């Protein structure tokens, strides 16, 4: 669906001939139920107010004015997992905390998604140490991995946008009785691969001696 905004007194907004075809084009959307629901889901991914360590500060920063994830419908942070759609595992996954994290995940209602934010949550990162689980995917599913230690808010937002796209393409049963059950997910993509060419083109880097 394409859409646009216009100013009240903008003559372009009232151009046209007010014909029946035009009115229909402007006011009726034809879609199927699945796409409509997917579009709604995609644009209102409410995050769970949950953080573990350093990454949480950068995640919280993405809510503030300079980054502002409200632009993508994700500013509604929820204090309880029961009202949230997305859990951002922002920080180190401690062994002492793992049973708690799993319980919180299980308390979220489907459809639910998980972003693993930062090296610790992805793989343990620099903390290959007795008290840290080597990646949150050892005990629960993850949809998107965001790299960095901690990732910049921009990197987190890229992960969020990636997940929104995936959610938009996802097909879930509309009903637990009617039609085929099970979730059809779009193919997983690796940004490492898709961005390779762009990365290889970067041959001259800014000197650290200049601001």
């Amino acid at each position, binding site marked *: 669906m394409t859409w646009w905004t216009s100013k009240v007194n903008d003559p372009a907004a009232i151009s046209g001939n007010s014909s029946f075809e035009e009115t229909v084009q402007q006011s009726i959307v034809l879609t199927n139920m699945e796409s409509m629901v997917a579009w709604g889901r995609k644009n209102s991914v409410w995050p769970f107010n949950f953080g573990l360590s350093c990454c949480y500060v950068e995640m919280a920063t993405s809510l503030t004015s300079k980054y502002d994830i409200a632009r993508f419908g994700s500013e509604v942070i929820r204090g309880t997992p029961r009202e949230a759609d997305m859990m951002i595992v922002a920080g180190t996954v401690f062994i002492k905390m793992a049973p*708690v994290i799993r319980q919180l995940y299980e308390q979220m209602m489907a459809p639910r998604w998980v972003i693993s934010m930062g090296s610790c949550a992805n793989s343990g990162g620099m903390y290959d140490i007795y008290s840290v689980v080597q990646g949150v995917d*050892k005990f629960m599913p993850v949809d998107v991995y965001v790299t960095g230690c901690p990732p910049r808010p921009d990197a987190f937002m890229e992960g969020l946008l990636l997940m929104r796209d995936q959610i938009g393409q996802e097909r879930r049963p509309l009903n637990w009785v009617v039609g085929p059950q099970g979730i059809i997910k779009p193919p997983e993509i690796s940004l490492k691969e898709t961005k390779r060419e762009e990365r290889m083109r970067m041959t001259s880097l800014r000197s650290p001696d200049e601001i």
Partner: protein
Amino acid sequence: MPDIVSILKDKFPQGILSVQLTKDEFPTLWAEAGSIISILSFLKKEADQPYSMLYDLTAIDEQAKNNRGEHPESIYTIVYQLLSFERNSFIRIKVPLTAQTVIPSITAVWPSANWYEREVYDLFGIKFTGHPDLRRILMPKTWIGHPLQKCHPARATEMAPFQLPEAKQVAEQAAMQFKPEEWGLEKTIADDELMFLNLGPQHPGTHGILRLVVQLDGEDIVNVVPDIGFHHRGAEKMGERQSWHSYIPYTDRVEYLGGVMNNFPYVMAVEKLGGIIVPERAQMIRIMMSELFRISSHLVWYGTFAGDLGMLSPVFFMFNDREKVFDIVEAICGARMHPSWFRIGGVTQDLPNGWKNLIQDFIDYFPKRLDEYDGMVMKNSIFKARTVGIGIYTTAEAIEWGITGPGLRATGFEWDFRKKQPYSGYENFEFDVPTGKNGDCYDRAGVRVEEMRQSLRIIQQCVNNMPDGPYKSDHPLTTPPVKKNTLEDIETLIHHFLNVSWGPVIPPGEAFCSVEATKGNNGYYLISDGNITSYRTRIRTPSFPAMQLVPLIAQGYTLPDLMAILGSVDYVLSDVDR
């Protein structure tokens, strides 16, 4: 006046075993376990200019050490570090433990020893006789072994892969179940049945993964029991495996809002061990970056504290200003939160061209914002009603419980390590030490707000007086040594190669260094065994004692006050649990 070492030797001829010389030149004495309580109570209560603060209590596993020196035989050594404000100096008492791993508890002398002794028990397996509540504090209750023993594996990948089957999930949850009797809490007072409220480990008001069990009589708090350790990242064990140089990034993450401020005490301690003199320019760059991080850390606190008390907008303003600080940090260090930018012997690289204008713009911009925030937060009547007269503690209580930093100064005691024990050239700066009067939540907030202004003054002086010269020492242990010299002589090339590939070899010895960090006094106690890694890295953080004090200052207030108290203490969970 005779020095404290000879006084102690005269007073306890049997108790004092020997005297040790350390690189930090603190009086360091070995004492016998049987007389430790009398020695410590003498130092606290009877000695002239007493050592009134139990600054740190930790242990060392000596079993893998090669350079033992002339010191008494020991398998584990318990280390007590005390601070005297009158003398403005530290003292260190070490107790060797041989066959038996039992020592009398000193909780009767300092109640604040409670958590420290629990930590030593948890991580080393040493038992303290007479301790009121000796159970694990950092590791889960179900953990087997004591992680800081040399025989315990360090890496997760050396241990069995982590799995969480349903049965384990249930068992772990059951082990975390709160049972008042196990925690020494009464279920009733007189005829009233008390309510227990579990807060955390996941709760928006706890600023991280902290669990508090609150014992309530109606809305009034009878007691609070913190359950910590959810954020234990094994930072001390990590120091025994990373090279001296490659440990620097881990220090950033100990107090994750303080950035390079955390590198500061660590590199200073290594430099003390290695005998490295840091050039003036590097010293001033370090101060400038640390003060920028003090501002950014205080801004996070300012916004979230106001948020805790129901004000939604301040956090947006303050995080925007924090972005401005990060723009500078990023331009100079190349990263935002954890630049790991200090190096042994200096800093990573020289300041980039144009740094002055960048910082000057911020200095010109920020004071007006602070004034605006005063109007928005500090003068707000609701904010005042929620903080004035709430969570009070006195100077004496602060000292008794090991509180440093803004939390100590808010009680009216003007004690700032930047003034009292200047390091890295702080003695050359003009700045005031803001203090409070009542030691309540409002005063703690006021001290931090004023500290941001003072930090700006310091940064302005750095901009005006930045000396020329090298940004790194030319000492061979500097890591990595200055690159251009490597192309001129073979000696530097060899050092460069070794320091980069193996890491520097720091001569045997031990040293403690601390800085006035954002949350209080942050110190690193490093022991070198003449190797490429540290033998023991002890991190003394300000948030650990602050968290231990929370129950005492919360008693008698109501539940909403607890949120104000937690916010005003300004801890970071990674700083509590390390």
